[in-house]
């Protein structure tokens, strides 16, 4: 690699001065040039480095299996996906589940329900799946194309549930564990005021912070989740707690704590995420598909 004339000779210094991701784009491009894409490598890359936003959607799609590893069949599969989407939308329209005025997230929800065969009858009224809606709202912000958006939502949720469905219940425990390591006083405080069990775990772990963090920060978290790590969620939550520990320790009412955590200020989330990633890398070492 070092002899590669195309590679920037400054690359060795970029990381030293903190510009991460300058060379990563190039290496990602190299990765993406492989004909049968190496999913392992891609996910490792995505775990280790932040994804350039211009390739993010593509990588996500590949990682989530929306696009096949073979770039030759991308167009074909893309066509399939598109047709499927259209078919479903058509069917839903025919069945009058949706109409032109239905919000896209609801369309996605119906579609997802249809695909997962849980679409309620028209007469039935199920409580809307808020997790899905939150994720879809976030995804809609991230992705422009509605087809991609739907597929990403669907695959993300599916993958998340398939992959981490088992470990989700353990995440609060590990959060406590890491919190006791990082800031035992805060943990004690939370425990003493009884806010610990009331923390917004569903917001954090089921929705993957959708609606909690702004999309620009969220997509970096999701990079890690999509590339196969749900521990990052724990660290993001930990970092949120650590960042606002002064406010949290000042707050003695669990409701107040929860309320605050549900509506954390959106200013320095980037820093929180960066720190969380650092923490995550610190604790989970070289994140090699660590769960």
């Amino acid at each position: 690699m070092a002899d590669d004339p195309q590679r920037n000779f400054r690359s060795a210094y970029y990381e030293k001065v903190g510009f991460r991701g300058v060379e990563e784009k190039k290496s990602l491009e190299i990765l993406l040039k492989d004909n049968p894409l190496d999913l392992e490598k891609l996910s490792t890359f995505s775990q280790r480095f932040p994804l350039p936003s211009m390739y993010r959607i593509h990588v996500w799609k590949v990682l989530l299996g929306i696009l096949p590893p073979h770039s030759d069949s991308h167009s074909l599969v893309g066509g399939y996906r598109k047709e499927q989407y259209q078919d479903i939308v058509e069917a839903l329209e025919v069945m009058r589940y949706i109409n032109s005025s239905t919000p896209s997230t609801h369309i996605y929800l119906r579609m997802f329900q249809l695909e997962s065969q849980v679409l309620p009858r028209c007469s039935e009224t199920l409580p809307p799946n808020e997790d899905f809606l939150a994720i879809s709202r976030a995804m809609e912000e991230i992705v422009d194309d509605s087809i991609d958006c739907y597929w990403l939502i669907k695959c993300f949720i599916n993958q998340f549930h398939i992959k981490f469905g088992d470990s989700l219940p353990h995440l609060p425990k590990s959060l406590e564990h890491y919190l006791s390591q990082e800031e035992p006083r805060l943990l004690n405080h939370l425990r003493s005021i009884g806010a610990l069990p009331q923390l917004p775990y569903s917001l954090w772990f089921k929705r993957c912070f959708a609606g909690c963090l702004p999309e620009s920060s969220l997509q970096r978290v999701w990079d890690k989740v999509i590339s196969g790590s749900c521990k990052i969620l724990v660290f993001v939550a930990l970092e949120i707690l650590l960042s606002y520990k002064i406010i949290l320790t000042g707050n003695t009412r669990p409701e107040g704590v929860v309320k605050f955590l549900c509506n954390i200020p959106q200013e320095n989330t980037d820093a929180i995420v960066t720190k969380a990633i650092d923490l995550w890398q610190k604790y989970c070492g070289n994140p090699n598909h660590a769960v």
Partner: protein
Amino acid sequence: MAREQPNVGDLLPLLETSDLQQLEEIRSLINDQLSTERGSMLLNALVDYFLETNSAQALHILSSVREPHDKHLLDKMNDCMAKPACRLPTLMLLGHVVRKQPSWIHKMARYPLLLSLLKCLKTDTDVVVLVTGVLVLITLLPMIPQAGKQHLWEYFDIFGRLASWNLKNPGHVSEVYLIHLHASVYSLFHRLYGMYPCNFVSYLRSHYSMKENMETFEEVVKPMLEHVRIHPELVTGTKDHELDPTRWKKYEIHDIVIECAKVSLDPKEASCEEGYATMPENFYPQAHLRAQDSTSSPYTDLHSSYGSSSSTPFSTPRQPLPPPLSLPPLSGTQSSSSYRSPQTSRRQNSNSELNSSCGGKDPLWSPSSLCGMATPPSSRGMSPNLELSHSASHLPSRFHCTSGGKGTPASSTPATSSPPPTLSDDFPVISLPANTVQSSPPRKDRRPGETSKPGLVRQEHVREMEKSGEGAANRDAGSAANVTMTLTELSVFVTKQELDLQLRTEKEREEAAITEELMKLTEDKQELPGLRGYDSPFFHTTETLTGRQTQNPTSSTNAHPGGPIREPRYAASTPDRAENASGGGAGDRAAASDRSAVDRSWSFQSGFTPIDHHLLRSPSAPDDDSSKFEMFSPSPCGKAPVPYESLFALALPRAASLFVGQKTSEAVHKAAMERLLQREEGLEDGEEEGVVSASPLEVLDRLVQQGSDAHDKVLKRLPLPSKSADWTHFGGSAPLDELHTLRSQLLLLHNQLLYERYKREQHAVRNRRLLRRIINATALEEQNNAMKDQLNLQSVDIVSLRDSLQVEQQRYRQLWDDRETVVTRLHSQIRQLQQSRDDYYTKNQELQSKLQECQKRMDDLEAELQTANNKVGHTGHLLNQMTVKLSNSESSQQQMSFLNKQLLLLGEAHKLSMQDAQQPGMSNTKETEMLRMSHMKEVDSLRQSLLAQGQKLEAAQQRAAELETLLSKKEHLIAEQKKFLEDVKCQAKAELQASDCRFQAQRRITQLLQTELLQLYSQVEMEAPAAAGSSSPPGGRAETRTHPDCSGVAAGGLHAVKQPNSPSPRDSPRGTNGSTLSPGQPKASGSSLPLGSSMNGAQDLTPPLLMEPSAPCPHAALPAADAPLTVGSYPSAKSFLGMKARELFRNKSESQCDDEQPPPRLAGLAHGLKTELCVEPGPAGPAAATVHAKEPPPEPRLRPLGQGSPHRKAGPGQVGVRGPSGPRCPRQQLKIMDYNETHHEHS
């Protein structure tokens, strides 16, 4: 200012007020005015006021005028100088100002006042003005030395004019004035000579070389020249250098004054400083002796000239003198007083001389007071005899003074110093008790003899002189001459008066005692006139001697002898005196005090002091009786403490005082000796003594003394009121004139006094400086001593350090030596070691060279070894070859032996055969030959066939190799292909997954749609159950027909709804009608078969399929036979890869076939059902059509979606037809398999 100006002017008269406070106020007012105002008004008023009133206060203010007013003051004075009337007061004012030495005095040279002063001096004829002016000029000269350059010749001219004045007396002024003038000219001479010697001498040379001036020179200037030394500047300096202003820069005013005094030989003028003090004493007598030798004749001339010159001073006293002569009657008291007065004067003189020798002048003494008292001297109270005797007694001394160059020591000491040597010689004798009487007589004998002789001679001489003086002067008085002489003596005393208060009181006491004494003496004297003649001179000489003794220790010792001598004499002459002395002790005390006064200056003889004190003080009575005491009494040692000397002792270091004392004693000794000689000489030829010229100052002194003497006498003799009447008696001139003369004389004296006072101040300044220098010097000396001590200490230190240094050096040397030895030893060791090292080196080298040789040898040996090895190997190889050859040869030998055996056998057989052949005959041979021939041919043909066979074999082998490579290539290709296939498989799988997903979705959709449909159906049925029959029979039938099934279908639908949960979706589709088509459909869409053909094929095939669903395979084989056309084209298009893909597909499809195998069966099982459906295609079509008709709304939308839509369209249209699509798949697979087979076959 202008308003106040008159006020201040008016205030001026108030200066004379007696109120001190007011005076102070006015003075401060005027001073303020002067300090604030810059105008000249007030100053001019002050000057005018002064000129009018001669006010002392105004003078005081004027003389202390500050800088800005100097110009006005000088201008004003310049103006005043122009007026002859105020010239004198102006000059006096100027004199005061100049003596005050204001800071601006140096500007004088630039103001016209100096010029007018000079002009005045050159032109004026008033002696008083001249004298005053000259004194001012003399005072001014040192202050403006640089101005001499311009005015030098004017000074000289003034000098010349005034010098000649004496002789010519153009103004015909009284001669008294001339004395003053002469004195001032003398001072001017000194000043000019001291300051500008070269120029002055050259002036004198030029001026007095003229004949008309010769007389003046002889008379006036030459005597003056006698009183100066050769100025050093005459030797070293030049005229120009003298006038150089830079020369004067280093001098202060008093420096210049002293410089001038240095060159003077006149003790009254000269300073006794820096070696010059002793010089007059040392040199004077010699010079005098020389002078006596050389100028014996001029002396007379000089004397005569002196007489002429001094006649004027004498004249004044003489004027009153004649009357005494004419009035012989003398009261005893008068005579005594007269006698006393000279004595006192003498005494005073002696004291004054003492003082003058000390260089002191008493400020308390004012000549003016004396002069004031010096009203016409009245000496006529004296008896002529007495006078004579006195004159005789006085004369010698006076003449000594005059003849001795007038120098105080020179003149008088010689006279008295004659006894000292003898005395000193006789001292041991004197020291013996009761020797005094004996010793004194001889002395007495000798002295009187000696003194009487000169006295007589002198008297004669005086007479002569007086006569000459008479000749020269207007009046002459023989006895008066004596008086004048005494007067002159007194004047000297007066001018030089010490007037130490103490001395003064002592003197008065003395006087009192002496008067008493003399009262008696006079009687004795009268009784013993002969004695008197001896006595008085002697006495006087002793008196003078005591005076002289100030400088002369010997004379002082002599003085005492004088005392004792006198006393015995007195005792002899006046027995009362002894009593007097013993009883009252007044005279003794007086004498003692006198002596003490003398002694004070000679403290170095203090060894005698106690004795003296003892003898003279307390036991004054035994003085007379015990001559022993008298022996000691002469010792002049200061019985009283010596304040002055002790003061000096305090101020000076003792060394200095000792030095001074020693010096002076030496000098005095010398001088005394010489004077004695001179005196004796002078005694022998007494004439010469009187010839010595007197300094003008002395003359003036004498004049004053005489005046005061006369005044005394007159006072004594005359009652005060009668004083005025005396004038006519004495002078014979008008009293007014006389008064005027006297007044001006007084003025002159005053001026002179002021001048002298000024001089004294200059001396004081200088003394202070000298004292400071001395102090500095002593301090330095002390420092020097301290330094010397330090030096000594340090030298001691140095010595000790040097010793230690030597020790250290020795030690160092030792150490050095030790080190040297060690070093040498080490060096030798090093050398040894080096040598051994060198040896080792050489050995080492040898060994190395040996080693190298050995290595070389080793190499050689190794090479040899290698070659040997090679040889061995070679030989081994050869051996092997040989063994092979050997074995070969052995085998060949064996063969040989075998062949030999065979040969033998053949030979035997040949023999046998030969035998046989020979036996059967020839026919056999032909046959054999023929046989052989045929065999030969056979062999050839066989060989040829063998060759062909070999060639064939080779070709076959080549072919096999080729094929093998081809095979390997193909295998490689196959691997690649496999990889690619895998890739493609993955791709396809992914695609398949996608499509599967899509399919799933689609299925969900359809399910949903179906459920929707069912719902709708149920709704429809629910709405119109009754109207079912009226709608359409087939439809109704179908509905009825389907109804029973409907439950099944519903079940199936339900089943289908549940299907997602079931793991095997493909099993069930066949069970259901609607869903069976779905597997085929994707296949149909997945396969790339041309749609049209498949459609056609499907449409064509459907009937047979429907007809015989169980036997499609044989049928299918037929279309498969047609299919190769299409299929065959496929591989051609895709070539080898396509072939491989087919293989892959075949595998898949085989497996699929295995899976799909049941569907046909299932289809077969469901055949009954389908046939049922198919039996009524007609009604089914409309049914389908109805379904189809129902579908149109979605159709237009679906159609543009993709290629799948026609199928779907067809699908629903041919629900029943879908079934055969299942069998079609196997056929297709078969086709592929066929293709594969054909391909294999083909390849």
